[in-house]
């Protein structure tokens, strides 16, 4: 598709403008994290109080950041593949049922999605205790067994539904089973959706601070989200320290996103 140079550059300017606009909160966190300890909120934009990298070393001294980072990575490393398998299985399966069953499963998924998470906090606590998952990593990754969120199932469902049914039919004639068709034919065709679900569920488990707060007791099992809470309890007015921790915690998903997002495109 050809485009005139003028149109291309107008689009480019618009892209730069919105990208800059969306970067504001992160830039603000970065600037704040570089301020020396104890400097108050300032009306000035620059670094009139100087720049300091001290906050990052202070953070490592105050809480065992290395251990918490490892724990967070472990949770995501287990929950993410599990989420991708269960949610794509469900989406794949629903997309090939009869239209009536499809509608039923979609409505059921929406009804489940609507259950307020606050309604599940205390009853899941009882459940995990009964199952022996309390104070273990299994309590944090349990939602991955149901694909983390019915929303991801619906996303996969929409994507798989776009694949023409003839493709499945011819694969079945060649003697391919359900799992072969799912893994070798359907999944590669919806790669953008799969990567999207992967990124979204990464953020869910990485940033989750409710589950570790409710279901973990031993400090050595805490995740990074709890580290941020711990630092906040130590001093809510210590802005530069909190912002450093926030920056550190955001860095890993940001790097991951930069790494995988070229694969979000199948066309062009």
């Amino acid at each position, binding site marked *: 598709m050809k485009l005139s140079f003028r149109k291309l550059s107008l689009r480019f300017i618009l*892209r730069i403008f919105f990208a800059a606009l969306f970067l504001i*909160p992160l830039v603000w966190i970065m600037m704040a994290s570089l301020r020396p300890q104890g400097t108050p909120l300032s009306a000035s934009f620059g670094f009139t109080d100087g720049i300091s990298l001290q906050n990052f070393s202070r953070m490592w001294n105050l809480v065992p950041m290395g251990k918490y980072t490892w724990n967070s990575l472990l949770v995501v490393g287990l929950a993410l593949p599990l989420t991708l398998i269960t949610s794509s299985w469900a989406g794949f399966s629903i997309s090939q049922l009869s239209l009536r069953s499809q509608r039923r499963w979609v409505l059921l998924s929406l009804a489940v999605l609507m259950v307020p998470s606050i309604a599940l906090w205390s009853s*899941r606590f009882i459940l995990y205790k009964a199952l022996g998952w309390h104070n273990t990593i299994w309590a944090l990754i349990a939602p991955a067994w149901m694909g983390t969120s019915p*929303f991801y199932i619906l996303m996969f469902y929409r994507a798989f539904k*776009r694949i023409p049914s003839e493709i499945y039919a011819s694969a079945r004639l060649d003697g391919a089973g359900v799992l072969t068709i799912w893994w070798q034919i359907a999944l590669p065709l919806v790669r953008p959706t799969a990567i999207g679900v992967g990124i979204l569920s990464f*953020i869910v488990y990485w940033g989750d601070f409710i589950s570790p707060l409710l279901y973990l007791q031993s400090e050595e099992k805490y995740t990074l989200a709890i580290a941020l809470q711990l630092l906040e309890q130590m001093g809510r007015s210590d802005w530069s320290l909190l912002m450093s921790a*926030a920056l550190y915690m955001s860095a890993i998903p940001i790097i991951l996103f930069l790494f995988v997002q070229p694969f979000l495109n199948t066309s*062009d």
Partner: protein
Amino acid sequence: MLFKVFKKTSYTRKLYFLLIPYTLGVLLLVIFPGILSFTLAFFRYDALSSPLWVGNLNFILAYTDELFLLSVQNSISLVLLPVPIRVLGAFLMARLMQKKGPFLNWLRASIFLPSIIPAPAYALAWLWILNPLFGPVNIILHALRLALPGWFANPNWAKPALIFMSLWQIGEGFLISLAALSDMPEELEDAAYIDGASSGKMFWLITLPIMFPMLLLLSFRDIILSLQESLTTILLTTNGGPYYSTYILPLFIYEQGFDLLSFGIASAAMWSLYILSGLIIFVLYSLFGKEGISITDETFLS
């Protein structure tokens, strides 16, 4: 043994096998715990003594509480205004960032980045950005000689401030729109282009209608999220104030349950939250269904 059974069954039966983890997970992690908390609405329960049957007393107590009615109003206004802006904004951003261009990966990443920032960090950053005296927004407004809003400190401005900060976190919608747009076969647009359709016309007549089911799904998701998850942000920023201007229904539930230990009243309010989200979604579902748009739509391909 199990494998042999699996091999013998028909294709459709096997499809249902793939639904087992999802079904079991939903039953165990959502439906059973959900039933447990929702039945508490008919009991007097404070987590210390055993539950006592009280019929519909909790519902009466909740519905006669002025704070309850206020929280429902606040919740509704914090959904109706931001959701259309967020969904449409996310889609238009995805459209803007769809085609190839210089630095595209970086530009896309910057739209998504605010959504990666953990909630506590994000809330703290915005408390500073929208600080009435020292925040950059008001400094710029002051330089432009415009009126200075009080943001989180002013009951009239606290809701707009919350909506404002939510507009930066549209990464999920952006990502899904991007994926949906690139799942769309390119030949379709090319064909229309060859037929002489202008790019604007193409967008309204071809791209948007194909995207409608996805946008509808995104709106449902955003309505539910705005109704529930906004609790975290509010706990970290305004805590319902000033003068209860951001006191939402989940906060009412939270305070009844975890502060006052009236789990029965909290559960009665959960019913209203569930019914409220169901009602909004039902109205949208049937409204769009009349226009022939639904999530289960057969698309142009099948």
